[in-house]
């Protein structure tokens, strides 16, 4: 094994660059926590690793671009997946020209609709969790995801993205409407039900 090359460290996991059968891969490793007993630690790490892997695999079936999964180690909590060589949408969003930005937003909306058609909730749709590579928008980090068919949950899923665009790309906050356009185009159920939920969630106004 090559030496650990951590490229990102979150609250729960670290992401390392590595090689797997000649392919360039990343390992998402859920870190053991000293503060909780082994019983709980093992259970959480293994069930979350499993859950995330399933969601990524299921998303691929729906036609959404996600990394290919090479290997899963439930005991160690490691998902070995394709390294997506590209740029985070967060880093390029503000520099795109208007037509490109509009197109990207529509395609993001379409992808979210494909996820929601299969009741896949990403749980953390932000522009940091999307990578543009080879003209494809890849979705990563399904760690907070779940399978859920409730309108409310789908609304929350979109609301997270709306807030991310408002806070990180405030100049282009109104581009969220193109995300919704794409979403409406591809969603099999009545998208207005979900979109009305977003407004309801905003009115509750608890989050930033």
């Amino acid at each position, binding site marked *: 094994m090559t030496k650990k090359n951590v490229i990102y460290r979150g609250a729960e996991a670290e992401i390392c660059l590595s090689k797997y059968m000649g392919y360039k891969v990343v390992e998402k490793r859920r870190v053991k*926590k000293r*503060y*909780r007993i082994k*019983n*709980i630690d093992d*259970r959480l790490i293994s069930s979350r690793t499993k859950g995330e892997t399933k969601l990524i695999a299921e998303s691929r079936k729906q036609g959404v671009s996600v990394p290919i999964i090479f290997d899963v180690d439930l005991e160690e909590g490691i998902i070995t997946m394709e390294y997506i060589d590209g740029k985070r949408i967060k880093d390029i969003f503000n520099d795109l020209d208007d037509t490109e930005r509009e197109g990207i937003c529509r395609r993001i909306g379409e992808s979210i609709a494909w996820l929601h058609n299969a009741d896949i909730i990403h749980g953390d749709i932000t522009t940091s969790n999307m990578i543009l590579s080879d003209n494809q928008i890849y979705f990563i980090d399904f760690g907070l995801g779940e399978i859920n068919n409730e309108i409310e949950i789908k609304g929350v899923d979109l609301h997270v993205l709306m807030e991310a665009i408002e806070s990180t790309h405030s100049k282009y906050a109104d581009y969220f409407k193109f995300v919704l356009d794409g979403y409406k185009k591809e969603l099999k159920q009545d998208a207005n039900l979900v979109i009305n939920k977003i407004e309801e969630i905003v009115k509750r106004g*608890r989050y930033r």
Partner: protein
Amino acid sequence: MICIGIEGTAHSIGIGIIRDESNLCKVLSNNIKTYKPEKGGIHPREAANHHAKYIADLIKESVVKSEVDFSDIDLVSFSQGPGLGPCLRTAATAARALSLSIDKPIIGVNHCVAHLEIGRGIFKDCKDPVLLYTSGANTQVIGFAEGKYRVFGETLDIGIGNCLDKFGRIVGLDFPSGPKIENLAKNGRKYLDLPYTIKGMDIAFSGLLTASQQYYNKKESLEDICFSMQETCFAALTEVTERAMAHTEKDEVLLGGGVASNKRLCDMVKTMAEDRGASFFVPPKDLCIDNGAMIAWLGFLMYDGGIRMSIKDTIIDQRFRTDMVDVSWRD
């Protein structure tokens, strides 16, 4: 400046007197009297009657204990919300009467914000913490961002203290049950699987409460159940706190609320902080539970920051949210 604070959001009536000393809070006295229901949970009106019965004597006692005179007091502060209506109204009425009779300004403060500010007030190195606030009714992860104290995560159903108390009632433990559960947990050996519910940075306990009750009905050992409850609830609380710290990029963590006196919870959060290279703070118990000193200190900060209230601004707010407060006294 000397400030008297009146706390009365729930089952405790607290009178605290503080003085500011080079930007830190010096507690002159901090008297707390707690209403204990004969059975069941808190009855708001009975709690309020309890507060009304003791409040005047408690104020006199506090002034004597602080070795000050009524004329030395510069400001009257009280808990304006959130909390139980009858209790809030009793504390507010006392504060208004006191303010008028000693002819000193009055200020109403947010109870949850007071739990955070008291930490900053007594620890010199606690400057910009994430607060894990755990009490009977409240369970919130709070941090300062863009001019307000934002709630990054909170319970979606019941407060952690409430969860422990309800379980205590089911199995016949005295109120408050937290300390008894903590003791029983020390002899627990076997971990029983319990629901661990986290949604992003939010948390839920009702499923865990039901499951614990089912273990009790199935005659599992009470020690094992208490141990499993504590380990599960507190691990979840520690996890959401860590998420909020990572999200806000803060490297200080502060505990507050009655459940912060649980040693296991303290240990877990402290371990998490150590592993992140963050500082950990927990105030002494009488400043963690509902108390008047923290109300007095926040009142001072707000007054010092230029905020003024007249009697008509002192109407109570049972649903006074943490993020409704404009934190103009801090940069």
